[in-house]
C-alpha cells in the first residue's frame, strides 16, 4: 500500500533543514467542539446531579411539605395545616427538653473533642516514638460503630451501687477514687446528657486529632526554621507561626463536630432507650414517627433540625466559597 507523501504520520526531516517548531501532535486537527464549552462537564456530573436532586433536595422538599400537613398513621394526608405543627412543637414539653439536651451535649462534646484532639495532635507532632501506633490507637474508636460504642459504654457508665457497682464506678472504687463516682447519664440533672460526651468524644477525638495533625504537618518547615533563626522560642513559634495556619482546620473540625453532634442518634438510641434525660430531637423524631405514626410531627422535627444544621453549615459554605475565590 502506498502511503501518500503528505501523510501526517510521517514527516520526513533532513538535518540541513531547520527543526520544525510544530510537534507532530499539534499537527492533528483538534476535535470539533459540539455544543457549549461546559457541555461535556455538565454531562459528566449530570447523573449525580439528578440523583442528588431527587434523593436529597426532592425528599427534603417533600419532608418540608409533610411538616405542613396532618399526616398521621399509614394513610398519607397532605391537608394543609399551616404552622400548626410548628406551634404545637414549640409547646411540646418533651421537645423543649430535647433542644436543651442537644445544646448541652453539643457544647460539651464539641469543646471536649476539639481540646482533646488538639492536645493529642500536639503531642504527636512533637515527635513520639511509634507515632504510627498511637495514631492508630486514637483513630481506631472511630472505626467502631456507634451502636457498639454505646453498648460498651452502657456498661462502663452503669450507675448501680453496692453489689451492683460496675464499669467506671467500679474502677474508681478499686483505685480508691470513690469521690469520682457518678450517676453519669442517669444523674438527676439537666447536665446528665453531658456524660454522653464521654463515649462520643472517645469515638471522635481521634478524628479531630488527625485533622489537626495534618494541619500542623502542613506548616512549611522553612517558616519554622526562619523563626528559629530569628530567635523565637518553640512556644512562640507555635503561637505565632503554627497557630494561624491551623485556623481553617479548626474551623472545619468545629463544623464537622457540630453537625455530627446535632445528628447524633444511634449512640443515644442504644445507650438508654426512652431515658428522656438523654433524649434529643432526632430520637424524638424517630420514636414519634415510627412508634406513634405521627408523620407530621416527625417531619416538623426533621425540618427544624435541618434548619439548625443549615445555620451551622451555611456560614461554612459561604466562608469556603469566599476564600476559594480569593
Amino acid at each position, binding site marked *: 500500500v502506498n502511503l501518500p507523501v503528505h501523510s501526517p504520520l510521517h514527516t520526513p526531516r533532513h538535518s540541513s533543514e531547520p527543526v520544525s517548531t510544530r510537534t507532530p501532535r499539534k499537527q492533528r486537527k483538534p476535535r470539533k467542539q459540539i455544543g457549549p464549552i461546559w457541555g461535556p462537564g455538565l454531562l459528566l456530573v449530570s447523573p449525580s446531579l439528578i440523583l442528588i436532586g431527587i434523593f436529597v433536595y426532592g425528599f427534603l422538599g417533600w419532608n418540608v411539605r409533610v411538616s405542613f400537613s396532618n399526616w398521621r*398513621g399509614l394513610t398519607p394526608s397532605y391537608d394543609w395545616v399551616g404552622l400548626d405543627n410548628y406551634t404545637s412543637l414549640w409547646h411540646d414539653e418533651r421537645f423543649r427538653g430535647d433542644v436543651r439536651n442537644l445544646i448541652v451535649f453539643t457544647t460539651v462534646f464539641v469543646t471536649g473533642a476539639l481540646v482533646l484532639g488538639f492536645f493529642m495532635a500536639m503531642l504527636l507532632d512533637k515527635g513520639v516514638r511509634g507515632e504510627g501506633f498511637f495514631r492508630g490507637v486514637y483513630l481506631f474508636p472511630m472505626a467502631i460503630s456507634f451502636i457498639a460504642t454505646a453498648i460498651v459504654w452502657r456498661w462502663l457508665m452503669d450507675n*448501680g451501687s453496692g453489689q451492683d457497682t460496675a464499669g467506671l464506678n467500679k474502677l474508681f472504687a478499686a483505685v480508691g477514687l470513690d469521690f469520682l463516682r457518678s450517676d453519669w447519664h442517669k444523674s438527676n440533672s439537666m447536665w446528665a446528657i453531658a456524660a454522653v460526651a464521654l463515649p462520643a468524644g472517645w469515638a471522635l477525638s481521634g478524628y479531630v486529632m488527625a485533622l489537626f495533625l495534618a494541619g500542623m504537618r502542613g506548616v512549611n518547615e522553612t517558616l519554622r526554621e526562619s523563626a528559629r533563626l530569628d530567635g523565637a522560642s518553640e512556644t512562640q513559634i507555635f503561637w505565632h507561626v503554627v497557630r494561624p495556619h491551623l485556623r481553617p482546620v479548626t474551623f472545619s473540625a468545629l463544623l464537622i463536630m457540630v453537625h455530627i453532634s446535632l445528628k447524633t442518634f444511634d449512640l443515644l438510641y442504644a445507650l438508654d432507650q426512652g*431515658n428522656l434525660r438523654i433524649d434529643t430531637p432526632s430520637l424524638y423524631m424517630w420514636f414519634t414517627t415510627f412508634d406513634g405514626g405521627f408523620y407530621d410531627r416527625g417531619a416538623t422535627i426533621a425540618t427544624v433540625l435541618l434548619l439548625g444544621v443549615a445555620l451551622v453549615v451555611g456560614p461554612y459554605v459561604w466562608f469556603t466559597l469566599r476564600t476559594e475565590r480569593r
Partner: protein
Amino acid sequence: VWKGRLTILSLVLVSVLAALSMCNIRGASNDQLEVYSWWTGPGEEEGLAAMAKSFESANPGVRFVNAAVSGGAGSNAKAILASRLLANDPPDSYQRHAGLELLDDVRSGKVHDISDLYQQQGWVKVFPKGLLQNLTIDGKLYAVPVNIHRANLMFFNPRTLKELGIAAPPKTWSEFLAQAATIKSKGKVALAVGPEWTQKHLLETVLLGELGADKYEQLFAGQIGWLSPDVTAALDVYAKVLAVSDVKSAAGDWQPQVDRVASGSAVYAVMGDWASSYLESSKKLQWRDGYDVVASPGTDGVYDFLSDSFTLPTGARRPDLSRKWLIECGSAEGQNLFNPLKGSIPARTDADAALYQGYLGWALQQWRDPKTRIVGSLTHGVVANNAYNAEIDSALGLFVQSGDQGKFAKTAEQQFRETQ
C-alpha cells in the same frame, strides 16, 4: 487506554450484577411466600424455622422466604414495615402484636378481614373468649395469634426471700410497699426496673392490680378517665412503688434487670414471661428453685396477655398462599412446633399440654382455666393503639423524670381523646 476501558467494563459489570441481585429480591417468583417478622432471637428463630419447614412440606413447591428484621424488640422491624406498607409493597404476611397495635393498619386498609378463616378453621371455638374480644377490631378479625405471653408476673429468687425472712411474695401492692420497707432496712433493693418500657410495663401491672380487670379495661376503652379518683389512687401507688425501686440506677435492658433478681441484689422484678425462658436457658436456673414467679400483686386469676400474630396484607402477591400460612399459624401443629422453642404457650386451648413443662405448664393451665380473666397488655400493644401508646411513652418519661403525677394523668387523658 486499555486500563481505562477495563475500569469502565468492570463498573458496568458491577452495576449489572447489582441490578441482577436486586431483581432476585424484587422479581419474586410466583410460588414463594415472604413472611415478615422480628423473630430473630434465640428460640423464636428456631421456632419460626420449624413452622416454615412444616409449611413447606404441607405445600410442596412453595418456598418460604424469611424476611425477619432483628433489633429493638421489633421496633426496627416495625419502622421498615411502615415504609413498605406506605409504598404498597407489603410482604405476604407480617407480624404484629395482637390487638389495637393493628388498628392503624385496619383503618388504613392495609390488611384483609379474615373472619371467614376463623369460621372455616373453627378457631372461634379453640381460642379463649377474652382473647377473641381483644383481637376483634370494629367487629372483625384481622390477625391470627401464634403464641401467648403473660405480662403481669413478678419474678423473685426464693433464696433471697428466705434470707430476708419474707414468708411469701406480696398479694397486693400495699403489702409490697410494707415488705419494701423491711427490704430496704436490710440493704437490698425491693424492685428492679429497666429501661423506660419496663417502667411502663410496671405501670400497667400496678394499674391492673389496683383498679382490677374491669376498671383497667374501662380505662383503656375511655369509659373512666385518667383523672378519676380510682386511677389517681392507683397512680399514687405507682409513684410509691417507683420510689422503692432502683429506677435511679435502672438496668440498661430487661435481662440485666432480672439478673439483679437472680443474683439477689434486688428482690422482685415485674416482667413478662420471656424472662422465664431467659433465666432457664441463659442462666440455667430452675423454675421454683433458682427463680420463682407469681402473678403481680393484686392480679391473681387475671391473665394480662400479649400475643404475636400474623396478618393477610392487602396486595399480597399470592393471597391463597398467605392464607395457607395463616392456617399453619393457627393450627395446633404449628403452634406446638413454635411455642416450646420460643418459651411461650399456644393461643389455642386444645394444644397438647404435655409439651409444656415447668413454668410453661403452669402458665398454660391458667390460660386454659375458664375462670381466668383475660385482659390485654398496654405496653405490648393490645389495649392501646400505636399513637396513644407513643404519647404515653413521652408522658411517662416526663413523669419519671419530674414526678409530676397530675400532669401525667392530664396528658394521658388528653392524648386518649386526640388519638382515637
